[in-house]
């Protein structure tokens, strides 16, 4: 016989304000099988939990129902409390009378009636609960980090320093990501290379980090603790272990004027065999077969091979697939800049001296195409007047994206500042909508740009940019003075908005993690689980989640690492036991369940007799992958799959409870 306890929580006035909690308690007491009914101001508080535990003990309860807030909030709290009294934690059921009743209804009488109904349903459900054991999944204590920018490097280093092996995969020939393209960084003006290269080198030399550059994740299957990863190591045409990075090959390459440098954002050229930048890690060149004469002209040119001392250039190298098994993954794929071609009025691509913020970074950088001197791409002259345009693409739902790209206000202030420092007597103008400078030292930094470095900030949008007698005429509005302004500039820098890295949606699909409509990976909970993806064992870091600056990217990389180290501190991972369960006796192996499973959790299982003869094939649920979503239950024609804790007879009893 069931001995059920019902606990009605007031949640202060959150529930009690709209629901007659005493009435709910009285109705509960009338239900056969309910031996104890209580209402209390805060069930989740210590005294609340203690009274719950005492009653479990005193009345020897077989199940408890909490008429309280959403199970998302406190199901775990009460499960733990019940477990302490020796009750299987899955004998705890929650009737959500806050989010589903008091917060959404006004009429107290009807809200109370609904609360009573929900409570009754859960009483009938809890009577039919069976003990459920959590599933334990063994963990392969090795991590994969996808993307070797600052967030990925930070994550890899922290994990590696925690004593765990890491595989760091980077698509480009070198790690370093976007940060290594930057010049000095706000708000302290540290030189990006100076602070980034030591980290890159450390990642490369770390005994626990295996680095795959010029490589891509080709396929991922499996589940937390046991992901099978296929990594495509693209043919580099250079044998990495023999290369000394001497540079003879790229100096010998005849293709030195034809290919735009991706690293310098098209502001310079590179050779066919190249390292993207002098501090590249690893310092091993890549041969770009799409432009190399050897590949385009049938093997005639082999100047790089001839120049190479250790003879480590091998034109016959092929793409290689490397298979690894890891227990956890960090997705830190970073960002791209938005295509600004929809802003025809700004003339990007049409006028050589209208450039993006990232291009300006390269002009500022000592390792950039101008060796750190600010020169106009058109004629190499030093500009005296620069107009910076903020929010190009960002905060523009019509043409661009509605979100704020977050870093542009700060890097524009930095650009204007550095321009003033490098070109004395120059003048910069900044068109902005709002200035967002909320982190430590940021507001002071922007103030400094305005007040010490003399940048003129104009609140308004730019309507048109056109060329006139060697000048770029910028027409815009100054909404604070209400005037139209026209500035004759030597150069215009567009603070282009950021978007997720191209192809990150494909990766998300491969990983089975969710992403928002722009393609940014979404967190398991935006506030409370910001480092976790929607899939267990896959963590997020850096700009792949959304616009953020370097300190935030570093923090998120470390957060993901600490989550992984925490996960790996145990030998097994516990998965909630509420997963799908196949009735093998009635399963006819049509595998509609497999087709509808979004988690690849269902496989075919052969049932054999003692002599090894195949009796039948049935569906089999992988407990590590199953999330208990129940899609398979709906798909099963013969009702041969149930989700534990949500069994057919329980759902039926809940419905019946309403009918009485």
């Amino acid at each position, binding site marked *: 016989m069931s001995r059920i306890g019902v606990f009605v929580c007031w949640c202060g006035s959150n529930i009690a304000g709209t629901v007659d909690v005493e009435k709910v308690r009285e109705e509960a007491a009338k239900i056969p099988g309910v031996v104890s009914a209580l209402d209390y101001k805060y069930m989740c508080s210590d005294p609340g939990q203690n009274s719950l535990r005492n009653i479990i003990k005193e009345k020897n309860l077989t199940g408890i129902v909490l008429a309280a807030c959403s199970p998302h909030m406190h199901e775990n709290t009460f499960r733990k409390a019940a477990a302490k009294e020796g009750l299987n934690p899955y004998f705890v059921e929650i009737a959500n009378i806050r989010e589903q009743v008091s917060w959404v209804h006004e009429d107290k009488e009807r809200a109370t009636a609904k609360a009573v109904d929900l409570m009754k349903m859960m009483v009938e459900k809890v009577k039919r609960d069976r003990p459920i054991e959590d599933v334990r999944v063994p963990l392969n204590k090795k991590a994969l980090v996808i993307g070797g920018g600052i967030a990925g490097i930070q994550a890899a280093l922290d994990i590696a320093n925690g004593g765990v092996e890491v595989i760091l995969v980077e698509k480009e020939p070198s790690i370093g990501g976007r940060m290594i393209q930057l010049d000095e960084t706000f708000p302290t003006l540290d030189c990006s290379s100076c602070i980034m290269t030591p980290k890159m080198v450390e990642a490369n030399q770390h005994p626990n980090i295996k680095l795959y550059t010029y490589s891509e994740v080709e396929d991922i299957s499996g589940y937390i603790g046991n992901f099978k990863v296929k990594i495509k190591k693209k043919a580099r045409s250079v044998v990495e272990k023999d290369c000394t990075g001497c540079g003879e090959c790229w100096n010998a390459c005849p293709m030195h004027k034809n290919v735009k440098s991706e690293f310098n954002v098209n502001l310079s050229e590179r050779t066919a065999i190249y390292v993207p930048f002098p501090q590249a890690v690893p310092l091993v060149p890549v041969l770009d077969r799409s432009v190399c004469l050897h590949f385009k002209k049938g093997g005639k040119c082999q100047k790089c091979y001839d120049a190479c001392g250790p003879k480590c250039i091998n034109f016959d190298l092929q793409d290689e697939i490397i298979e690894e098994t890891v227990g956890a993954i960090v997705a830190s794929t970073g960002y791209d800049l938005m295509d600004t071609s929809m802003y025809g009025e700004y003339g990007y691509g049409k006028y050589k001296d209208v450039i993006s913020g990232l291009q300006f970074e390269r002009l500022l950088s000592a390792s950039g195409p101008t060796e750190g001197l600010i020169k106009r791409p058109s004629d190499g002259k030093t500009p005296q007047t620069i107009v910076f345009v903020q929010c190009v693409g960002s905060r523009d739902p019509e043409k661009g994206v509605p979100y704020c790209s977050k870093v542009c206000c700060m890097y524009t202030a930095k650009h204007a500042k550095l321009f003033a420092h490098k070109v004395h007597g120059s003048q910069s103008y900044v068109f902005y909508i709002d200035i967002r400078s909320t982190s430590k030292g940021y507001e002071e930094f922007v103030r400094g740009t305005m007040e010490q470095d003399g940048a003129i900030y104009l609140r308004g949008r730019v309507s048109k940019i056109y060329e006139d007698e060697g000048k770029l005429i910028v027409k815009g509005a100054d909404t604070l003075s209400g005037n139209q302004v026209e500035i004759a500039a030597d150069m215009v820098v567009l603070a282009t908005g950021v978007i997720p890295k191209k192809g990150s949606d494909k990766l998300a699909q491969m990983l089975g993690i969710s992403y928002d409509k722009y393609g940014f990976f979404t967190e398991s909970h935006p506030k409370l689980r910001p480092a976790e993806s929607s899939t267990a064992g896959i963590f997020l870091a850096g700009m792949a989640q959304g616009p953020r600056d370097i300190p935030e990217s570093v923090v998120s990389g470390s957060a993901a690492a600490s989550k992984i180290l925490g996960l790996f501190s145990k030998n097994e991972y516990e998965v909630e036991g509420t997963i799908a369960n196949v009735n093998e006796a009635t399963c006819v192996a049509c595998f509609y369940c497999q087709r509808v499973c979004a988690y690849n959790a269902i496989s075919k299982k052969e049932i054999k007799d003692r002599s090894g003869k195949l009796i039948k094939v049935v569906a089999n649920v992988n407990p590590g992958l199953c999330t208990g979503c129940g899609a398979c239950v709906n798909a099963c*024609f*013969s009702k041969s799959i149930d989700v534990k804790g949500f069994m*057919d*007879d329980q759902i039926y009893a809940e419905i019946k409870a309403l009918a009485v």
Partner: protein
Amino acid sequence: MANTKTDEKLQKIAKDLLESGEVSLVIGYAKGSNLQRMRPVFITKAEDAGKLSFNPHAVQDLAVFLKKPEVKKFGKIGIVVKGCDEKAVNALIQEYQISRDNIKIIGMECNGVIRQSLADKGETNLSESAVYDKCLICEEHIPVLYDFLIESEEPKLVLSGNVKPYSGIEKLESMSAEEKNAFWAKEFDKCIKCYACRQACPLCYCSRCIVEKNMPQWIDTNSEETGNAQWNLIRAYHLSGRCIGCGECERACPVNIPLMLINEKMAKDVYNMFGYKSGLDINAKPVFGVFSESDFNDFIK
């Protein structure tokens, strides 16, 4: 009656298949107790292949036997199928119930089969008004998949357009929800829960049907209003996007519930909404087993 050329070809194929050991069972048609009736026959010995025959009275969908454990145990099986029946074979392969490697399909070109009710009264001529509705809309006179094909000796069916197949669908679609309910309530009222529709269906292969699940008993087993509606609607729903339109359920129904009306309406809706027709491709993903971002979702309010 003497063997036709069709019969001879059929018998030869079956004989060869059994003799070579390529199959250990051939399911086909044999002449029945009267000239207008064909009955299923199970040939396991090459010398019995002479029993096989085929003509426009070969009404039954033999694919129904492929789901039976006593048939499955033969392993490799040959089966005589019309175009419509063959789609059931494809659907069974799609749904992993049989393996393409284990089945030899003897496809019969078919220009239509004569309604059993008319045949029993002596009708032997293929005509627009004598055949089933499914024959009038048939697009698979030659099966879509086969290992052997036997061409028909029958003349092609001449369609004047005077007979409108499944005309009930249009009538149904013009009804209000209440009228539809009333229409089906009246039809389902006749149901005696004999489950002949299920037994005759080649795609109702669950070893335990949902109606037999009794903890809890979702579907009332007694034959009264609620239980009848539950059964008939769930049967139709479980076959939507799967039914290949052989019409065996309706033919088997002892109380003449127009089951093909509901099946064809479902098939029509599935085609309009998802562009999917069942049983045409063994590699296609069944429509209810896939999700596509382009699926209509205007039902979400």
